[in-house]
Structures are given as structure tokens and as C-alpha cells.
């Protein structure tokens, strides 16, 4: 084999990715010699917008950082702001937040399972996983009025309570997910073709996972027992012990391959079922908001001064929000570090040395959330990059409007 290496790209737009990201490869035949990636294809300036709004408005913006996590970013942001303003969240609200987080974990992992199956060309499994996921979305819609962006979290608590009927619905859904867990475990972990495609593929060693600062299931599958719920308990996780799910629970050993990342996510579905049952059993009575009246809340926040970090174990791993407030309506600084930001770098050691056929499943195995992570960039025709400021974007959009108007005028 003396064929020269050639370069190819996957993305920014490619069927393997549901969001734009650019992976670059040096290939030799079917083998990946060198891997690199270029994020930043879909930035929306969320942090910039957030620094021009009051914290209650930012909550709704924060929810929309991610396409599927309705609690993750709002909760991390709210936790940071609550620490700065010294607001004590009522116990019942802590439990309701955790219940929503865990239900979200089920639907996120099922969504991921479906995507992974699709990457492998196993569409029956993809449809099965996504159909089961609908149950969580329906449940959340009944509870909050929305399938994805729930607007559940409020600074100082939650906006919607659970009544007896909803609790019964959740219990029924948990029973349903017990059977789904059995099916998913059988279909993913015992299927021959899935085993053939995922075992020993895309290995991330424990050392690499530690050095690259990986988080969530990606880190746990490589033997790093990191889980914010266990390491820095918050919300109702302070009342209930959470044990990080490690792949040796099923395989008896840790390989750090794609298969182990599937094992961790599949077994976290079972973990969620147990956790939600425990939360429901111990759900305290009481108020769900520390400061129910919005004007009073805003007045309190306007006086707040200081900085804080809000951590949360999202389905993909640790999410970090840094907020600084300086006695004004809007936060002075807001920095979001999504879980995928910590996991992107793991792609390089995972992909190098693997086959072209394994690129999609390895790329998907960290469950990348690109909308959560992206920063502003534009690719110039000469391959160079430059940042677009607000003035640039305004000018570009005005130019486009004018072009459209002139076109219409010409007709």
C-alpha cells in the first residue's frame, strides 16, 4: 500500500450531522491518518443578547441555546443567579427541577440512540427509539405546555407544579420506560451488527479523557467517574445519592470504545427511572417559588452584585454558566460552556487510525450538541476566517433587503 494520503471533509453540511460542523481528514484508502475539526458554523450571539436583557428574560433565551435540552441551560443560569442574589429555592422546587432534568435525560438519550442507529444504517432501531421518546415529550407538554422548551425553571424555583394526575402520568410513563429499557438494551447491546460496528471502535483512553477534560457519558465510558450530580450535588440530588453509571456495570470491563458509550447511556435510562421514582416518593409539600411576584423578583435581582458559577449534569455532561452581576438590570457578563465543548477534542484521538465507515458513529458517540457550543465565524472564499460584528450583520441584512427590493422593482 503506497497510495498517497488524500484529504477529505465531512460537513459543514452532511447527512451524518443534523447540525453544521466541519470535520477534516487525511485519509489513506479507508483509513483515517489525521483528524481535525472546525466548529463555529452556526453561531447566534446568545450571550451577547443575554447581556442586554434582565435575568428573567435571559432564562427563555438560555433554554433556546440547545435544540433539545429544555431544562439544562435555564437551570444552570438560574443556579448562578440564585447564588449571586442569595435566593433560597424551596425544597419542592428542587425536587421538581430534578424530576424534569431526569425526564429530559431519558428523551435526550433516546434521541441519541436513534441518531446512533441511523449513523449505523439501522433505521428500524432509529424509529423505535424516537417513537419511545415521544412519551416524554407528551408528558412534558402536559406538565408545562411545551414539548421541548418547557419554560419550567424560574429564578428561585419552578413555574409549574405537579398535581396528582400528572404524578400518576409520570409513574405510568416510568413503567413504560422500564419495558423500553429492556428493548433498547437487547436491541443495542446484544445485536450482532451493532456489536460488530461498535466494539473496539473509537477508543478514548482514560488518560486522554482526563487530559482533554471530557465530561458526561463520554468521560464515564472511558473510566472517569465524573458526574456533577454526585460530585457537586444540587437541586434534589443533595437528598438522593447518585452513583455515576460506568460501562463495567454491564461489560465487566472498561474499554472506552463506542460500545461503552452506548452502555453508559442505555444504563442511565434505568438510573433515571429509579431516581424519578425516589424523587416522587420523597416529594415535599410547600411552595414552588421563593419570590412568586415577578416585579419583586426583578427588583431583588437589580440590586444583586457578584459572580457565580451554575453547574448542571446535562444528558451530555457538565454544563457551566458563569454569570457576573453588578447592580443593574442585565447581567454584566454571561459565559456558557456547553458539555459538547469539553468533548469535541476527544474526537481527534477517537478518529485517528479508524476507518472511514466508522467516522459517523464515532462522531455521534460523544452526542455532540453543536448549537450549544458554536461561536461566531464566517468562512471567506479564500479559506480565511473573520468574525462578524453586529454592525457587519446589520449592514449585510440591510444590503440583502435592498437587493430583494431592487429585484422586485425590476420585475
Amino acid at each position, binding site marked *: 500500500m503506497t497510495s498517497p494520503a488524500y484529504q477529505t471533509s465531512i460537513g459543514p453540511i*452532511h447527512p451524518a450531522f443534523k447540525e453544521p460542523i466541519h470535520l477534516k481528514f487525511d485519509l489513506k484508502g479507508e483509513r483515517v491518518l489525521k483528524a481535525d475539526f472546525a466548529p463555529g458554523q452556526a453561531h447566534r450571539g446568545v450571550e451577547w443578547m443575554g447581556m442586554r436583557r434582565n435575568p428573567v428574560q435571559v432564562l427563555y433565551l438560555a433554554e433556546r441555546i440547545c435544540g433539545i435540552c429544555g431544562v439544562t441551560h435555564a437551570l444552570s443560569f438560574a443556579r448562578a443567579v440564585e447564588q449571586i442574589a442569595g435566593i433560597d429555592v424551596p425544597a419542592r422546587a428542587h425536587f421538581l427541577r430534578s424530576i424534569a432534568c431526569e425526564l429530559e435525560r431519558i428523551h435526550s438519550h433516546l434521541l441519541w440512540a436513534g441518531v446512533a442507529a441511523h449513523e*449505523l444504517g*439501522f*433505521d428500524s432501531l432509529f424509529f*423505535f427509539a424516537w417513537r419511545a421518546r415521544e412519551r416524554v415529550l407528551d408528558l412534558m407538554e402536559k406538565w408545562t405546555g411545551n414539548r421541548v422548551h418547557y419554560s419550567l425553571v424560574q429564578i428561585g424555583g419552578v413555574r409549574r407544579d405537579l398535581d396528582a394526575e400528572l404524578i400518576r402520568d409520570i409513574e405510568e410513563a416510568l413503567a413504560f420506560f422500564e419495558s423500553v429499557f429492556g428493548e433498547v438494551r437487547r436491541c443495542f447491546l446484544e445485536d450482532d451488527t451493532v456489536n460488530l460496528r461498535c466494539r473496539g471502535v473509537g477508543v478514548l483512553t482514560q488518560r486522554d479523557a482526563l487530559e482533554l477534560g471530557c465530561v458526561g457519558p463520554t468521560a464515564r465510558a472511558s473510566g472517569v467517574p465524573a458526574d456533577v450530580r454526585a460530585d457537586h450535588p444540587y437541586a434534589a440530588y443533595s437528598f438522593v445519592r447518585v452513583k455515576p453509571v460506568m460501562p463495567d456495570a454491564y461489560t465487566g470491563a472498561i474499554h472506552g470504545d463506542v460500545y461503552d458509550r452506548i452502555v453508559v447511556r442505555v444504563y442511565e435510562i434505568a438510573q433515571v427511572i429509579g431516581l424519578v421514582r425516589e424523587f416522587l416518593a420523597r416529594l415535599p409539600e410547600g411552595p414552588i417559588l421563593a419570590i412568586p411576584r415577578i416585579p419583586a423578583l426583578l427588583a431583588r435581582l437589580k440590586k444583586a452584585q457578584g459572580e457565580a458559577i451554575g453547574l448542571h449534569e446535562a444528558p451530555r455532561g457538565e454544563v457551566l454558566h458563569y454569570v457576573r452581576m453588578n447592580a443593574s438590570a442585565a447581567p454584566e457578563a454571561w459565559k456558557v460552556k456547553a458539555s459538547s465543548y469539553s468533548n469535541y477534542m476527544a474526537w481527534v484521538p477517537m478518529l485517528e487510525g479508524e476507518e472511514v465507515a466508522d467516522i*459517523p458513529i464515532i462522531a455521534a458517540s460523544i452526542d455532540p450538541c453543536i448549537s450549544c457550543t458554536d461561536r461566531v465565524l464566517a468562512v471567506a472564499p479564500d479559506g480565511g476566517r473573520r468574525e462578524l460584528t453586529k454592525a457587519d450583520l446589520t449592514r449585510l441584512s440591510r444590503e440583502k433587503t435592498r437587493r430583494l427590493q431592487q429585484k422586485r422593482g425590476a420585475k
Partner: protein
Amino acid sequence: MIESFLYLVVFLLLAAGATLFGLLFTGADRILVARMQGRIGPPLLQPFYDLAKLREKEETVPAGAAGWLFRACPAVAAAAALSLCAFVPLFGFRVPGAFAWSGDIVFALYLLLIPGTAMVVGGFASASPYAAIGAQREMVTMASYELPLATAVLAFAWRLSHAGVPEPLAFASFAELPVWSLLGPLGAVGGLLLAAAVAAVVPGELGRIPFDSPEAETELAGGLLVEYGGASLGLFHVAMAVKTVAFAAMAVALFCPYDFGLWAPLAFFLKVGALLFVSVTLPRAAMARLRIRNVAAFYFTALGATALSGALLVVLDAFIAGGAA
């Protein structure tokens, strides 16, 4: 003169019928898979709508492509697939003495290679790295299923020639004297192994899951077809539909030549439909895509060994058990 005109009419009818049946099967396959996945699926006639839409669509030739070659390949693929209809027994008709220029089963096997080869050439001609990887994979796939396929065909033909049939490679000979009637118990086991091997070659020959790595949507975005669009892509679809019917018809002619007299057309549809359901529809719903390395290992090593041992059993059966030679 009149005779050759008649042949032309018969050929055109057969080719039209095969295209129709192939596209209908594609539609039925999509519905069946959808139902297995808990979906409703597209209308039965969706492949026809797709073709009508593709005919309207603009075609682009990528910069850097070998333009004439890129444009010629879809036509070559469709022409080769359609000409198969002249040689493979279709729809249970036995046109007596037709096609004096008729080729035998080996000829049909070679003809069957052309659509795939045209896709490979078209892929390379399109100058896309995705298409180039897809084309390499298609070549590897074709090379690796050829061993089990050829072994199976030749083993059955050999058994006929051992029984003194003058033209053991002609489709008609298989129909007149079904090989199964010559096989003892040992040979029957061998025959079943060979039939299973050919059934497993079907999805590879047609580029379907789990052997669709040359197209591999989520990896190569369509692989060797990635740059094709419009009528050219439509021609490839037609070629694939006809190839589906022709290849299934060949397998059926070899391994299940019983045609039940007047019921022959119905029997043909049932046999071909059943083979395609088992070999194409079910695996597509129940499996993930294999890597090209796994495909080669499966076809060349595992299936090659299966076919060779099947052939060995057929030969042993002929010599030891005596058979009805």
C-alpha cells in the same frame, strides 16, 4: 425479417414489464419496511413519482469531472440492465426457440456486471472524493460476491452436464430438468447451501443494507451516486429496478425452476417476490450497515466457503450416491 421484428416487440414488452415490476417491488419494499418500523410509508407508486420528478430536475456535471464519461454511465447501466431482459427467463414465459442469439447463464452473469461497473466508472468520473471511496467499495463488493455466485451457478450446471444434458448452461435446461430431481440427500444439503449463498448475494448485488457501503448515506452522502441528479439518477434507478427483477429471476430459474403450467406468471411473481422479501426487505429492516472490510470477509471468506462446500457436496453426491445420472 418479420421474425426479428417480433423478437424486438417481445423484448420491449419484457423490458417494460421488468421495469414496471422492479419499480413496483421498490415501492412495496418501502411500504413493508415502513410498516415493520411502525411507519405508514410512501404510496406504492412513489418510485414512479420519484422518476417523474427526477426527469424534471436539472442535472449538474461537477467541475473537474470527465463530463462525457459521467453522462454516459447512467445510459450504459440502464441499457445493460434492460438487455438482460432478453436473456433471463421472465414472467414464466418460455418463448420457444426464441432468441437464437440467446446467451447462456454465464453470459447473463457477465451482463449483470455492467450496471455495477458503469456506476463505478461514473463514480470515479465525477471527481468527488465521496464517489471515489464509494466506487472503490463497490469494486471490492463486486469482486467478493463473485466467488460464491459463480460457484453456485457452476456447481448446478456441472450437475446437469454430469447427467448428460447437452447444454448445461442454458436457462432452458434448468427448466426442463430441475437439478433438485438429480440430487440425493447429500446433494440436496449441498444444493440448499448453494441456494442460501445466492440468496445472500442478492442484497450485495443490489447494494442494499447491510451491504450498501458503496452508497452509505450517513458516511458518503450517497457515495458513488453523490454527484448524480435529475434524469441521470433516474436512469440509475431504472437500471437498479430492472437488475433487481432480472437477478431474482435468474436465481429463481436456477434454484426453483418449477412453473406450474398455466400458473407460471403467478408462480414467477410469488417466487421472485418471496426471494426479494427474504433477501432485501427483511435484512434492510433488521440490520445495520456493514463496513466494507466486513462485507469482503463475509462474501469472500464465509459465503465463499459455504458455496464451495455446497458444491463439493453436490459433486460427492453425484459420484458416491450415484444419483440418477
